[in-house]
């Protein structure tokens, strides 16, 4: 038990140190960017399980995020279970519930549509994402197009500032997500996912329940997408349906592909790059006077696909680079 928790605990400690550096050395702008990086890490890693490890193509990740974000926002405004002093536990519970509902949606969407292959699956998931968005637009008790304002955020306490509380909460989930997915992929189940990706027909003839595998990967992925959604709701404290549009899903796909399909550390690196790069390009914008950020961004995407189609890491993980051959 202690041994299995050693590595997660150490990496959490590392993130805490990084957070302290951010807290005392950097501006609020950089701090909020760091929070977005955490959200995007979870989003990219969870999508990687479906797109990278299992070889399916989902384009509706933002839909699951939206489910999570709305559940998290709604619950935090209308329901408290734990008393004042244990406020953070409430938020933990909301996050789990948000992810849980997203996972239920993942099951409902995945069960029928994962029988389809390749492009078709991409379109169905895309369609699902759009349906969620349109449905949210039409739900008045969730604010409709106005969205939800003034979402409470993770409470400050134990002498922590608001940023620190949010950052620790986010880091906790990043660690949970990473190690859960990592161990899942390196387990018996994970072999099943990989076999579906490598050759679906061969896997099926070897007795792997391919649709079952895909659905399981999809549900886990939806859960963490929901978690990412809840976190983004608590960090930004304002959500509306259009913040979970098609482009959000595309962002997630770009991170996965840029990092390398099937490489979780790659997803993390790509999430950092993709979140930080547009902010860095703001300085370019000050020089040229026009907003070239998205143009450069999309052009870079096409160039990466042509010049390095396997992404930054390929299907390697970070540790493979210093391991002996």
């Amino acid at each position: 038990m202690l041994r299995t928790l050693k590595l997660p605990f150490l990496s959490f400690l590392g993130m805490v140190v990084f957070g302290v550096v951010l807290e005392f050395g950097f501006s609020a702008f950089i701090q909020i960017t760091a929070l977005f990086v955490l959200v995007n890490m979870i989003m990219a890693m969870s999508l990687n399980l479906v797109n990278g490890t299992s070889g399916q193509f989902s384009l509706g990740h933002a839909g699951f995020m939206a489910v999570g974000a709305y559940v998290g926002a709604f619950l935090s405004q209308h329901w408290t279970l734990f008393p004042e002093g244990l406020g953070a536990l409430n938020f933990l519970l909301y996050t789990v519930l948000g992810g849980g509902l997203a996972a239920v949606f993942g099951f409902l969407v995945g069960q029928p549509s994962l029988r389809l292959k390749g492009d078709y699956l991409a379109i169905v998931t895309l369609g699902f994402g759009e349906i969620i968005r349109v449905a949210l637009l039409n739900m008045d008790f969730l604010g409709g197009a106005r969205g939800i304002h003034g979402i409470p955020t993770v409470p400050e306490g134990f002498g922590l500032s608001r940023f620190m509380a949010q950052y620790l909460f986010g880091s906790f989930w990043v660690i949970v997500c990473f190690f859960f997915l990592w161990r899942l992929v390196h387990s018996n189940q994970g072999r099943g996912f990989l076999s579906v990706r490598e050759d679906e027909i061969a896997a099926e003839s070897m007795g792997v329940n391919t649709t079952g595998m895909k659905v399981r990967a999809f549900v886990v992925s939806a859960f963490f997408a929901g978690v990412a959604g809840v976190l983004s709701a608590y960090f930004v404290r304002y959500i509306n349906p259009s913040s979970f549009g098609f482009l959000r899903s595309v962002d997630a796909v770009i991170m996965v592909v840029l990092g390398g399909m099937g490489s979780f550390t790659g997803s993390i690196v790509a999430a950092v790059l993709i979140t930080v790069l547009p902010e860095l390009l703001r300085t370019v914008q000050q020089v040229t006077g026009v907003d070239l950020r998205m143009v450069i961004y999309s052009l870079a995407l096409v160039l990466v696909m042509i010049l390095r189609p396997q992404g930054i890491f390929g299907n390697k993980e970070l540790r493979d680079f210093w391991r002996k051959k």
Partner: protein
Amino acid sequence: MQDFVQHLVNGLSLGSIYALIALGYTMVYGILQMINFAHSDVYMVGAFAAYYAAKWLGIENQPGLMSLATLLVVSMVICAILGLTIERFAYRPLRKAPKLNILITAIGVSLFLQYSGQLIFGADPKVFPEVMTDLTLLQWGNLSLRSSDITVLIVALIAMVGLHFLIHHTKIGRAMRAVSQNSSVAAMLGVNPDRIIAMTFVVGSSLAGVGSVLVGMKYPKIEPLMGMMIGLKAFVAAVLGGIGSVPGAVLGGLLMGLSEEMVVAYLSSTYRDALAFGILIVILLFKPAGLLGRYQVEKV
């Protein structure tokens, strides 16, 4: 009853526009098995090309058949050139790459066109020039037959008949069908697949050009992001009819336009965008190959 006929006419003219754009998706899919996400933005560029052409040629206030023809030609040529460029520089280097990479490249090109469009044309909507005077041809109670709807239908019909002729009665069309069935065998028999694929992009993109001018006539508001929704719907239409099948795209487009018009008329307009994807999911679950598509047996 009159209302119903009115909605029928509206739906048909909307549907024929969807069909024109869906044809571009279906042709590229038929030959390359890829979803050309950039197609909807080629269509957007076509609309802007027509807008600026009308301005520069000074025909923005001279509605008539001549202006319509000029704008159609300009828009088709620009779209064809753009389609050709995209194929040459973004898709051709990836011919042998995994499907996912091509799909992401297509999304990348689409984003590139959208954001460059916002930069070059400005993000604010522009008013499309009046191409044809909009007359009421027939008034019968609530039913009014407008000339714009009829023009849209006629132009779309001509384009589709032209496409049918091209595919089934010319040498290029035969080569296209050959490449889409089996490109390596076609290459052995003396067809140059790269040229035929480029040709497919030219034809598909110029149909998007026709579509863009027709949309400009019917809904005269153009903006750099206009392609996204109509592109998705046209794509759904292509899947509905059976992607890769040319008559399927036309059928899918018409069904799509009709059902959307009926939903807006009799249910609620806020759900019009969800409808498209609802249809899509239902059709994929029960008939994944689409209405006119063929099932393919999977070979090991």
